[in-house]
């Protein structure tokens, strides 16, 4: 029988096997980026910025030019690249520790300047790479290696919601929070990602897609349980949806 390939590994990623743990959603997000870059014809003109976190090696995975940034500074690195190469498609790939903790000033100011870049923000409510410490996004009660009795509001406050916060920054053009816990949501996430890159292509300014992601290893759950936990625990606190779309305001 004749066959037609309807799904295959994207050319947007290299052949290198991913270094993520089994079932970690970093991999799904990588694939989406690769697919969108290929489908939009942007791969050859893109520069991806790997941040410090489990995705530090993503410079080996994206099938385009890459730079590896210091922890938290990917938006600054992106600024340097984009300003000197306005025609390149520049995107950062950042974890929640990277973006919401040490790199908070850099992300807010990239948005503030209306930097014409795309940010992929992978929120897994934990520091994956360093072994599961508390992140600003860790949920109340969540046990991590530095909140061994569960995150306590009195001591460490309530989790930061980055999309909501950035929505108040005038320079931010497009902000959406998505999830990849099932095919339906993966499709939606891809749509959002497409839009984010379109914003950049159209020189409409700063775009960020926040992905609800998992960390089976440091959450201490199976991959599927992790997806369920993301749905049951994370999404209620981090509602999915569009947080800002300033593309209409622009001309």
């Amino acid at each position, binding site marked *: 029988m004749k066959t037609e390939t309807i*799904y*295959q590994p994207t050319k947007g990623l290299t052949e290198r096997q991913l270094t993520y743990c089994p079932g970690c959603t970093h*991999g799904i997000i990588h694939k989406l980026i690769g697919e969108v870059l290929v489908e939009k014809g942007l791969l050859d003109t893109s520069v991806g910025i790997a941040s410090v976190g489990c995705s530090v090696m993503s410079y080996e995975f994206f099938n385009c030019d890459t730079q590896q940034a210091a922890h938290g500074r990917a938006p600054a690195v992106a600024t340097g690249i984009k300003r000197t190469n306005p025609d390149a498609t520049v995107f950062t790939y950042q974890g929640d520790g990277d973006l919401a903790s040490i790199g908070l000033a850099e992300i807010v100011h990239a948005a503030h300047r209306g930097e014409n870049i795309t940010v992929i923000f992978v929120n897994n409510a934990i520091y994956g790479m360093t072994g599961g410490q508390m992140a600003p996004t860790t949920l109340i009660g969540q046990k991590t290696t530095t909140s061994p009795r569960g995150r306590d509001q009195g001591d460490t406050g309530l989790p930061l919601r980055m999309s909501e916060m950035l929505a108040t920054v005038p320079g931010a053009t497009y902000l959406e929070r998505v999830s990849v816990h*099932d095919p339906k949501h993966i499709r939606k996430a891809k749509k959002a990602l497409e839009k984010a890159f379109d914003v950049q292509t159209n020189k409409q300014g700063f775009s960020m897609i926040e992905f609800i992601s998992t960390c089976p290893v440091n959450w201490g759950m199976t991959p*599927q349980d992790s997806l369920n936990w993301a749905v049951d625990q994370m999404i209620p606190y981090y509602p999915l949806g569009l947080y800002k779309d300033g593309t209409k305001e622009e001309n």
Partner: protein
Amino acid sequence: MAKGRIIIDQDRCKGCALCVYQCPVHILELDTSTTNQKGYTPLMVNDPEKCIACSFCAMICPDSVITVERFVKE
């Protein structure tokens, strides 16, 4: 009859089972009888005839293990 089939790049598989849970027709399973190069129990298809080529398994697979083909009537 099968609408299509999946091709598994076994040595890339990490045995995470995410695909297993997504398959609407429940034909996926990990092959616990073996381990691949990396030491993981890889994915296998139980009842290929049932595949509806929905691509769900492939979409959720973080490690680009699965290729999906649809059978095309000639």
